């Protein structure tokens, strides 16, 4: 049974971590609390669905199209919509609140566009849904792919951040945005890059998730909330924290569902979130530790 729980926890945790990774970049580096994050996920899911059902392009191949698209669109969103706010706040503290409000408006606009295009109906399709036998249990291949992706993407990004100049610049901007320019870092460029990268990541997660979860135009908020909890819990801007927090929540949910009461799973997640914050107000890997 412990193995069952482990696998369950890993797959669910991987899902959570993958969903949250893009947001931690957007919040931690670009300093944009992007409340419309979930809408990008759902939009990518719809795109994947369209490509699969109308053009018979399989979702994994669709990734090659949708992820760069997510990158470009997010780049534009930052440049056109977020930059004025950044400039206005002079990189001060009001950016956080302004970005929350602006992206909240954006959330409604994007959701409205999807509603007009697709209606309020649920949409679902199945891909890679055969079982994979691991350690005596069966896992759906598409959910396993999500976990693998989370680890690979998170790991790669983490390594890039640690070992490349751009990566170091990104970390510098996340840690001390006011001092970064002093060492010659173009904060705006780095922020744009981070925001766009976050957009690419959320597009990837949208495509992958659409392979096994039914979705509708109004489900974005659900994902945004989950991602926010994980981002805050892991420490804003910290990818490792994201992964750890995601896995922790996945395990909690699986364990509580099996051993305690399925009705308390989400409450347990929030309780864990609160507990972490009570003792570590900056999250698991807060700004202090990197």
């Amino acid at each position, binding site marked *: 049974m412990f193995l069952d729980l482990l696998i369950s926890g890993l797959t669910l945790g991987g899902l959570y971590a993958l969903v949250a990774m893009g947001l931690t970049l957007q919040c931690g580096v670009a300093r944009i609390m992007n409340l419309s994050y979930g809408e990008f996920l759902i939009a990518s899911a719809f795109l994947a669905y369209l490509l699969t059902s109308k053009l018979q392009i399989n979702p994994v191949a669709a990734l090659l199209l949708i992820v760069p698209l997510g990158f470009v669109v997010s780049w534009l969103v930052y440049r056109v919509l977020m930059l004025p706010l950044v400039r206005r706040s002079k990189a001060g503290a009001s950016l956080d609140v302004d970005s929350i*409000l602006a992206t909240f408006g954006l959330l*409604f606009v994007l959701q409205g566009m999807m509603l007009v295009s697709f209606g309020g109906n649920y949409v679902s399709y199945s891909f890679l849904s055969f079982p994979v036998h691991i350690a005596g249990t069966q896992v759906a291949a598409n959910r396993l792919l999500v976990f693998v992706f989370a680890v690979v993407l998170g790991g790669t990004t983490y390594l890039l951040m640690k070992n490349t100049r751009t990566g170091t610049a990104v970390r510098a901007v996340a840690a001390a945005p006011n001092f970064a320019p002093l060492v010659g870092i173009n904060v705006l460029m780095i922020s744009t890059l981070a925001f766009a990268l976050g957009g690419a990541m959320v597009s990837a997660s949208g495509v992958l998730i659409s392979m096994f979860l039914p979705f509708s135009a109004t489900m974005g908020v659900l994902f945004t909330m989950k991602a926010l909890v994980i981002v805050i819990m892991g420490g*804003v801007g910290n990818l490792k924290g994201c992964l750890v927090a995601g896995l922790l929540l996945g395990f909690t949910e699986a364990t509580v569902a099996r051993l305690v009461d399925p*009705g308390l799973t989400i409450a347990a997640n929030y309780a864990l979130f*609160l507990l972490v914050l009570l003792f570590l107000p900056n999250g698991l890997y807060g700004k202090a530790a990197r």
Partner: protein
Amino acid sequence: MKRNELAGGIFVTLLFAVILATPFAGGSSYHLSIGISLLQYAVMATAWALFSGPTRYVSLATGSFFGIGAYTVAVLGDFLPWPAVLCVALLIGLALALLVGLATLRLSGVYFVIFSFGLSEMIRQLVSWYEVNITKTSARYIFLDITQQQIYWQLAALLALVLAVGWWIGRSRLGTALRLIGEDEVVAAHVGIDTTRVKLALFAISSAFMSVTGAIMAPRWTYIDPSIAFNANISFQVLIMALFGGASRLFGPIAGVIPLVLMIEYLSTNFPNHFSILIGAIFMIIVYFIPDGILGTISARRPRASQPPLAAKAPRTGAAS
């Protein structure tokens, strides 16, 4: 100061003249509904600004307190006389606010915002679980014979009360302490102000008003379950209305509520299929072009929208104090 006070006094007199006259102006129940909407948001936005205005902690917990008030009516409505139910709603709001405040007011800015955002969801899960496992009820039915007019008058009275409380706080030592905290929390602490107590007190008062509002509105829906009572959208709408009007002044939020509620109603009626897009666009326009709120833009004194980067002022974020 005097001119402002006079202006404020005239505004409040006019406002209540309109409020008192409306039900007799010969409109329909729909018009009264709009009046109820306006009053509901006016109370909540003013209450929100009581806390979030001076302390600059942006709270998205409005929906949680509104919901807990509504749920109180759902549970106790059949057992207690109405005034007692309202009192219980108020006390529960206070208690919840103290609990939440103690836990979260130590969080720095953005963490507080996000936590308050998730609070609604968390409470919904807990109430759901409680109802499923302990009380074993599926949903609650409110069959109280409270007319629309009665709801309207209760909200009007509540608005008068919240404005009175806000005015009184502004003139009291509590208000001075608050303003100091808003300006510079470190200095305030050094001057001997118990910042936690002050913030808690304000948070509790603000939340109590929201709970009572929820309680008053609940009989309108007949059927309440956790997903109906706890709605995060309310939190955002209240926030945007307060900011639009100007959260740093007592009457600011009302100035934001009136145009926005009417606009939302207009859009709902005439563009049912494009409401989301239009309301989102309006929110964004407000954020981009009217960031200081109406009153802020009009008044010569600009509230502190632009900060020197390292100041501990403005919405709390960054280094915790």
